[in-house]
């Protein structure tokens, strides 16, 4: 972080930090080291209540799905046919399903897959989007070509294409990597390849603006190579739109994965994800309507928390709003 702090220009931020009517007295003002950009981002972020709670909730959900299985040791695939279709109890807080599998454990296992898919697909889309955006913004020669490509991808009907991709590549990938890993790779790749366009557009716009700034000229005048220029000067400066895209990317990826599973074209039946659990629960809608509630709530809460997080990040990372 410290390396980035030095590189980030802070012209616009200086007045905001001195004008802050905080509790710091005049003496403290001098002894305190000048607050870094990330410190101010955090201060602004803290003030956005929705974002703070959203961030905490998302952290709790992530910890629950990744660390929960270590504490709650019932296996998600353990079939106990005598204890099937039970309501909530102490041994099974969320009840059991039609095969007597513990719904609480299945929710954690499903969440682990859903959240992993969300984060990995977001990283892929982000990487692709940032790469295309930086290339298009930085190299004038590539701009036209790459932006036409982005427009083309935006014109593709994504959900139908995702469904088609699921259908086509499922079997070959399952054969190559095994049923679970194969479908994981397929879903992550499919979501990543179809959701990088907004990031690319935003990043390109920002790169175009930053490219004209004096510090880039200064860096160029001391002979910085293109690769160094992008890695050390351009990328740290477009980090904020990338971070906002990242949070929103997780949300869309989780929803897309659940939608695919819900349409029966995602993960295989014995491999729980939140979308799959919801899909399975709709079969028992008449008898056990409460069963759709848990996965649905989990998806909605995760996406809601991530959306609030992104909202707060956008405000916190925007120097025009910060300090107000």
């Amino acid at each position, binding site marked *: 972080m410290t390396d980035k702090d030095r590189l980030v220009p802070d012209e616009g931020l200086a007045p905001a930090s001195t004008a802050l009517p905080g509790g710091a007295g005049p003496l403290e003002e001098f002894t305190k080291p000048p607050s870094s950009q990330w410190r101010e981002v955090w201060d602004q972020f803290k003030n956005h209540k929705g974002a703070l709670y959203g961030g905490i909730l998302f952290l709790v959900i992530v910890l629950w799905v990744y660390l929960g299985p270590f504490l709650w040791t019932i296996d998600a695939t353990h079939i106990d046919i005598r204890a099937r279709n039970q309501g909530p109890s102490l041994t099974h807080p969320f009840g059991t399903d039609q095969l007597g599998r513990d719904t609480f454990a299945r929710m954690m296992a499903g969440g682990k897959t859903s959240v992993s898919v969300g984060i990995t697909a977001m990283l892929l889309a982000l990487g692709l989007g940032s790469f295309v955006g930086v290339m298009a913004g930085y190299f004038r020669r590539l701009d036209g070509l790459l932006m036409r490509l982005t427009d083309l991808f935006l*014109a593709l009907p994504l959900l139908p294409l995702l469904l088609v991709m699921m259908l*086509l590549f499922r079997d070959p990938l399952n054969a190559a990597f095994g049923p679970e890993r194969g479908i994981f790779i397929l879903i992550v790749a499919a979501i990543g390849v179809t959701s990088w366009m907004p990031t690319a557009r935003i990043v390109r716009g920002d790169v175009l603006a930053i490219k004209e700034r004096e510090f880039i000229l200064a860096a160029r005048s001391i002979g910085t190579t293109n690769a160094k220029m992008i890695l050390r000067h351009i990328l740290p400066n477009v980090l904020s739109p990338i971070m906002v895209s990242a949070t929103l990317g997780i949300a869309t990826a989780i929803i897309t994965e659940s939608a695919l599973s819900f349409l029966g074209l995602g993960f295989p039946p014995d491999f729980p994800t939140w979308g799959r659990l919801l899909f399975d629960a709709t079969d028992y809608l008449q008898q056990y309507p409460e069963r759709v509630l848990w996965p649905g709530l989990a998806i*909605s809460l995760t996406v*809601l928390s991530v*959306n609030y997080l992104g909202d707060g990040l956008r405000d916190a990372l925007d120097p025009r709003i910060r300090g107000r």
Partner: protein
Amino acid sequence: MLTFTIRRLVLAVPTLLFISLVIFLLLELAPGDPMAQVPLTVPPDVKEKMREALGLGQPGYIRFWKWLVQFFWIEPQVLIDAIFGSSFSEGDLRVISWQTRSPVMDIVVQRIPQTLWVVGTAYIVGILIALPIGIYSAYKQYSWFDQAGTFVSMIGFSVPPFFSGVLVIVIFSVNLGWFPSIYDTTHKVVDWDSFVYQLQQMIMPVTVLALQITAQISRFMRASMLDNLNQDYVRTARAKGLGETTVVMVHVLRNSMIPVVTVIALGVPAIFGGAIITEQVFKVNGIGQLLIGAIQANDLPMVQTLTFIFAVLIVLFNLIADVLYGLLDPRIRYD
């Protein structure tokens, strides 16, 4: 403006051709064999003939060309024939579905009214709710109404239709028994009772879709109003002594509607895409359901045609949005 429209229309042609090629090449990789369901007792040479009857014998580029000709040349002729009773398309081979062995476009035409009824109503309802909410939340920024509006639209963003749909089914159909959970597309409106039934079965899918649409458009409306409320011309209008209603509802609203109208236009194809899931939840017999069925049955001509229709909608409404923007905002000149 006209030159811009024409230029964009001309540019749309290679885009659409490229998209159709991408879709075709994707489907070309399909591992499924349309002959898989044919009994093993059928001799191989007969199977080969059946394969050729489906048009599978030729190399890919010829099949792509044939599909292009069928879609862009023969299908419009069929449409003209259907309207004017002429016979341009007689004897021409149309895009045939492998599932039903009937022309794809006939099935699409059968399914479109269901989708349009549900999705179209939802879109209009959503917009009608969203606009007042957006206007009032911007006018009273940070009031409790604005906070509540923000929260509701966050929920609209976050709750996916396959959960909100199932949830309303659980509440209103399973527990309360007010509405039917399955949309009956064969239902015909002939008298008052059947009209009431039609309303009842439409309420839930329309609500689910409208919630999402309202969430998006009210946010846009609010942001756009906020941008305009602080402009100098608003102060001028107030200084002239115009009433608050006139200032907000005429001066600010008309200027704020410019980006919102384009967003509404851009949302139309996305709603068709998003309706796939809602149609699946409520068993609406529309286009989305047709696509899912075709994908599961490996019906490649159907999938190709439907996906392409979605692409055409996206490109077309992008164009409409751009042209509308230019028409509504005199500051924007494309030429």
